[in-house]
């Protein structure tokens, strides 16, 4: 059973699982999708990539940032059957750059899977962001 007590100005409520099973009737304000102040996750409302998204880590801002941006912009805008198939040059460029900084971009996988691995992670973070209730850059 839940109960409540007051300690001065502080109120304390103990609740059981059952008490909290009924859905909440607390009202939350609707989020405005076009809120100019709000952080927008990976994809901005106008479709551009938010390079400043924390989900990208430091990828867009490091020494290979330019190559990364080129590769992923191409991938993002790609409308091919196999998404990103025409972007292989950009990805190669990015890989070459990353190989120069092994400390920053540890090469865990072998080279072939690297670009596709990147693409996967890119997609995952994409979806992950859409699922979040609130967006935080």
């Amino acid at each position, binding site marked *: 059973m839940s109960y409540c007590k007051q300690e001065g100005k502080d*109120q304390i409520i103990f609740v059981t699982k059952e008490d909290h099973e009924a859905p909440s009737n607390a009202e939350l304000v609707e989020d405005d999708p076009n809120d100019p102040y709000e952080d927008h996750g990976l994809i901005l409302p106008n479709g551009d990539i938010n390079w400043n998204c*924390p989900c990208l880590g430091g990828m867009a801002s490091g020494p290979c940032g330019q190559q990364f941006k080129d590769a992923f912009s191409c991938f993002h805008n790609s409308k091919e059957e196999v998404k990103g198939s025409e972007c292989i040059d950009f990805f190669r460029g990015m890989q070459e750059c990353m190989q120069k900084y092994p400390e920053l971009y540890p090469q865990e996988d072998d080279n072939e899977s690297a670009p596709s691995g990147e693409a996967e992670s890119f997609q995952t973070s994409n979806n*992950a962001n859409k699922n979040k209730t609130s967006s935080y850059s």
Partner: protein
Amino acid sequence: MADLPTTTTYLETSQQDDTGVPSPTINTRGRFLLRHERTPQFVQPAHMSSGPSGGGGENTLYFVLVGATCLAGGAYAYSTLVGDRERYQQRITEIESRSSKPAAEPSTPAKTQPETAEPVSEAVVEPSIAEPVQEEAPVPEPAAELVTEAPAPEAVPEPPVAEPCLAEPVVEEVTPEAPVLEAAPELVVASEAPAPETPASEAPAPEEPAPEAAASQEPDSGAPTPEAPAPEAPVPEVSAPEAALEESAPEIVPEPPVAEHLVAEEPVTEALVTEAVSAEPLPAAEAEIVPETPPVTQSASEPASAAASTAVEPTHAPYLLIGGGTASFAAARSIRARDPGARVLIVTEEDDLPYMRPPLSKELWFSDDPTVTETLRFKQWNGKERSIYFQPSSFYVSPTELESVENGGVAVLTGRKVMHMDVRGNKVKLSDGTEISYDKCLIATGGIPRNLQVIERAGDEVMKRTTLFRKIEDFKALEKVSRELKSITIIGGGFLGSELACALGRRSADLGLEVVQMFPEKGNMGKVLPEYLSNWTTDKVKKEGVKVLTEAVVKNVTYKEGKVEIKLKDGRVVKTDHVVAAVGLEPSVELAKSAGLEIDSDFGGFRVNAELQARSNIWVAGDAACFYDIKLGRRRVEHHDHAVVSGRLAGENMTGARKPYWHQSMFWSDLGPDVGYEAIGIVDSSLPTVGVFAKATAKDTPKAATEQSGTGIRSESETEAVAGSVAVGKAAPTPPPQQKEDYGKGVIFYLRDKVVVGIVLWNVFNRMPIARKIIKDGEEHADLNEVAKLFNIHEE
């Protein structure tokens, strides 16, 4: 006349009776007035004591005294004004003498060698002279600090030798001495020019990127420019310029053939580096050498180091970030992401690259690695290791390459403090004298730990045994202390104090260390958590092995018999080996004075608007920023996530985003493996609170939360979604069974005028987005239990 009474009594309103005859009487205030008798004819009806001096004695005395005071005041004022003028004159003459001194000296040698001057000007190829001179201009200018007077004196004794050499050096290859000597006479020649020109040439000097090019095109300017080097040269009083000259000579010899442009940008460093000079091609090189020799001789011991820094240090940074902490790094990252090819320069007082602070009082202490103080890597609960440095050094470009590297980058200048900021001129001056101009500037200077007055007054022996914990070196020192000493006392019951107490408490058993924590509040986190929770927390801290002294106010601290003795106001005494003071942070706002920026009197820190802007091209972020939060009002926040959020926002605004502070930052704390919480908004224990609790299960511990999310720093899991799969760590060990009324897990709402302004998630993790939403809404909720349902506190 009889002797007059004292002035005071005299000045009191005289009391007269109707007859108008003054008499000894008691006035309205009951004071007995002493008045000497006046003869009737001197009586004046009811008028001020300062009337016509018929009254004689008293009036006279009055006038004398007042007059004397006026005279004295006048004399003082006069002498001050005169003195002021004198002092001003002195100052001006002193300044002039400084600048004229270089000029004066050169002119002396110059005068003594009019002949050399002439042959120089004649024989020597004008352009070539111009070049070296020109070169020298920038060189000496920066080298001013180095004081390069050597050339001048030397030039004097060597004019005859120089003469014949003059012709040669100017030309391409030069014999070893020639260039050197030549330079000397040239300097001398140059010195002929009036001193005033020196400043003029000095001014443009630093600006010249390619003095060589300019020089070759302005043979005429050779005349005035020589002065620059000349005056500079004389300035320093080098004792062995010759030696220097000779040194540089041989070095030049091997290089003369090189005919690239002179990199005269950083003459200072180059000047110092004779090798650098020798690396320079052509005749100009010699000229360079001359001014450089003085510096070389000056810093004879430095040629090696000088040689090392041949590169040019930046004099301009499009984005200048003052301070090398979390906010600064977040801003750098943001700028680079939004402005392709951006060149960002971070200037930091510390010797370390940007790093994160929270592990210094938490994870680093839990590490099993004995070399942790060197590697500064910590293992997160799930086994993933990372360094406290945000990025390894290969991420950054070298400051000297910043202006030229193709795609821009982030460079860090360590070990320099920004001493002076010129907002009108858009430039800053560093502690080593370098000036850097900027287009946009971020101030992220953070703060320095506060100290207790009683400790500061306690003397060196106590200060030696006190740690003000903030930086990496403090962590290293304290870690060493914890292994070597037997007792450590922590003063302060807030985040830092409690975290350190828990961290040290965990080690106390293994190390045989006594850990004491004392603070004036009633319980740990007394200013943050409501009392019942604070008490509960204190119990947990005690269970970690810490001796907690609550309601402890330190009265004084002394060093006695090899121990630090802390006396409390209520009489308790604590004897310990080492003290850690965790009593708050003083924001670093020294730049406000020179920059003319506003400081907030309520919260401290630089006052900025909702977009973190102090001026049109100056932003402030992190601990030092007192900003306007649209939802919660003006505040200053000292937490890691706020530094990240505000740094990122400042970076966005520096690249034109114009967004206000909107995304609410969070903070967290772990007090041992069983007590952890995340919080957001204004969490002040003086506000009324409503806490909704459930019983905690084995899975509700900070350990389990991090294992789940795969990160060790919870704000990371918040803001940086980790792409890809996450390795699940070992299951958390079952905590001891909970008793009734145990505040195992729950949500606490902090209310201000019935609106939720702060939320603490107590052992409930990964719910921050909901908390953030509630605060953003800013609604009045009738039943907070309903709101608490949104958090699903009974589930994982």
